[in-house]
């Protein structure tokens, strides 16, 4: 059971029926891209969940590190003016 023979890990993304973007649904092991697609179909779309599948080698994903959470995301906390609810619109105007 040598480690080097373990099939690589793939991350699976599925686009559903309603025009939304592909969404990460999980991962699986497969020897190559073709097999990853076949396995993804069996593992993640048994109940009509999808119209399109993306398989991405897990090793190819660049992810932000948890330790960068502060510098990356905190600056947007103070920018409340980026949200529509920041602005008071006079009642007379109605919906905007």
């Amino acid at each position, binding site marked *: *059971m040598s480690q080097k023979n373990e099939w690589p890990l793939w991350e699976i993304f599925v686009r559903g029926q309603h025009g939304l973007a592909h969404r990460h649904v999980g991962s*699986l092991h497969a*020897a190559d891209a073709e*097999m990853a697609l076949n396995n993804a179909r*069996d593992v993640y779309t*048994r109940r009509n969940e999808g119209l399109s599948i993306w398989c991405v080698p897990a090793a190819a994903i660049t992810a932000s590190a948890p330790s960068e959470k502060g510098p990356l995301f905190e600056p947007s906390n103070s920018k409340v003016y980026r949200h529509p609810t920041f602005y008071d619109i006079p009642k007379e105007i109605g919906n905007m």
Partner: protein
Amino acid sequence: MYAQMVKATGKGVKTREQMDENERHFQDRIDNDIKIEAKDWMPEGYRKTLKRQISQHAHSEIVGQLPEGNWITRAPTLERKTILLAKVQDEAGHGLYLYCAAETLGISRDEMTEQLLSGKAKYSSIFNYPTLTWADMGAIGWLVDGAAIMNQVPLQYCSYGPYARAMVRICKEESFHQRQGFDIMNVLAKGSEAQKAMAQDALNRWWWPALMMFGPSDADSVHSAQSFAWNIKQNSNDELRQKFVDQTVPQAEFLGLNVPDSDLKWNDKKNGYDFGAINWDEFFAVIAGDGPCNKERLGARQKAWNDGAWFREALIVNAEKRAACKQAAE
């Protein structure tokens, strides 16, 4: 449950004063229902306990295919056969979702497989009982999947993100399993005398093992406190077992079948059923490897793994060869 008797590591639950800064921050996140993700800092004990719990859960799904796989070729109708095939396929899927969740904690799929095949890792005691008649397919769906749902629904809200997300998918699919099982029982219970007797016999054989699925009594469950604190266990074993009995007894009455427990009695005071003592010697024997089918189940998994070795290797070699050809062509 599907992960019975998971040993939590560590020596009891630490007080806030005993925790270091990382541990305190970690516990605060859990107490505030913020999910822990794979790359976040976590105590070694949390990681180890979850590796055990999730891999046991995954192994149970995979080994759980065997008792039902036994009846696919002998299902009474083509419709029942397609339903059973779909159900067993779901179990394989559930195992795969869970293996992936465990892998995020830093254990490889092959390591987990090795632990299952060597007997080091456990799987649920329930799958070490034989499936003797078609009615067992009904009893398993109704009772075993019914018991599993009780435990899995709260796990959707557990603290570890990848585990919780796997449970969401599993719970969506699990309801079909229980209902198809009840449907099998319902048809048999309304059938001929022989069919009804077959349903009763299945209930007789599966009732007690189903109650054992929830694990030892709280009094003997030494690892619960830490798992509660980490929010990877939300209900005590006895609490879930009681809930299961209260939910299932009226369903058995509807079927016109007798629950095989002479001590079973409604208790107004606790608004639930009192039930008889569970044979824990049997439970511990089955968990330790001495159940009726332990050897057969592990033997089947070992055979599948060994017989498939050439295939796994061939596909890797093929993938490498094709990648090399593609590169040469570019």
